């Protein structure tokens, strides 16, 4: 399926009923401190950030993340740590109640070493949440069939992993991402695995619509600078995708014409 010829690098990302000028979604965890978090978010140009749902700690009640972030960002609650569809659905419903948002990043983990998704449980959770009126963004494998099923269920976007969460391994299977992008009509956001700006650029060059990342920025030596690099990587990748790269060839083609060469 040919992509539409409108990708300029400045075209907005549309997910569900919302339009974003930034194609970068950032997590809010694992930063050295709150000021670095705030500075990195600003430096990245992101408009949407992920947050988690956890039991309230009376001792920590004063440290409200919502107060910290204010109204500057669209909050995307996740269901991180859920191992069953049932837990993910309840977590999403609690997030909706707490944040008054029907958006959710659905994560159903199948294994605590790899943090790979449990596809069976993910599909069950996604279907239930879509029926319940949620705008569902599922973290999923880079498997075209799973992605197609999630689209058919009614998810607003699909979020295949580039590599395991927090691994920084980059885009492990660019060919699958290309197939996913070509077969799905909804936005494809690469979620997890990005380690540096060139990984983000590659994902966008492949035609993916955006990136969701956390550790690569939060744990960088200079998170604020890396946030800026990710912003530029995403913009470069999107622009290159729109510009259309040349085909790869095995042999050389001279850039400079041989016409008019001197003869000895």
């Amino acid at each position, binding site marked *: 399926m040919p992509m539409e010829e409108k990708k300029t690098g400045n075209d907005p990302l549309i997910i569900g009923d919302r339009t974003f000028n930034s194609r970068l979604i950032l997590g809010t965890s694992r930063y050295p401190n709150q000021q670095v978090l705030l500075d990195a978010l600003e430096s990245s140009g992101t408009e949407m950030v992920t947050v*988690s*749902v956890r039991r309230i700690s*009376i001792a920590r009640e004063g440290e409200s993340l919502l107060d910290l972030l204010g109204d500057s960002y669209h909050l995307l609650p996740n269901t991180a740590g859920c191992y069953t569809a049932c837990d993910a659905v309840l977590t999403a419903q609690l997030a909706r109640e*707490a944040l008054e948002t029907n958006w959710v990043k659905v994560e159903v983990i199948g294994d605590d070493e790899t943090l790979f998704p449990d596809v069976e449980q993910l599909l069950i959770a996604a279907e239930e949440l879509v029926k319940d009126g949620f705008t569902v963004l599922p973290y999923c494998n880079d498997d075209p069939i799973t992605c197609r099923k999630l689209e058919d269920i009614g998810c607003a976007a699909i979020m295949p992993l580039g590599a395991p969460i927090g691994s920084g391994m980059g885009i492990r299977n660019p060919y699958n991402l290309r197939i996913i992008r070509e077969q799905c009509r909804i936005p494809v956001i690469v979620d997890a695995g990005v380690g540096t700006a060139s990984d983000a650029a590659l994902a966008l060059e492949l035609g993916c619509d955006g990136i969701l990342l956390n550790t690569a920025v939060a744990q960088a030596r200079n998170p604020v600078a890396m946030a800026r690099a990710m912003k530029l990587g995403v913009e470069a990748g999107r622009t290159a995708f729109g510009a259309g790269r040349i085909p790869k060839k095995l042999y050389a083609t001279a850039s400079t014409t041989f016409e008019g060469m001197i003869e000895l």
Partner: protein
Amino acid sequence: MSEESPGNIVVNGALSSWAGGVVLDLLHHEGLNPGRKGFAVALNGQVVSRKDWPVCQVSAGDKVEIVTMYKGG
């Protein structure tokens, strides 16, 4: 003292003595400000919407989850 004992409920996984009342009473009992935004309550696995906090009864043996938003990826 088991969680099924009369007068006890489980709040966020911890046993808590409970004289009875509605969700709103429980939030006060736990030292939370119900007017504060950004948290939610589930009773026995079902979300209790904010508008129902003044009327939804919490009974001995119930399991309650009180959550809020934290940093996440």
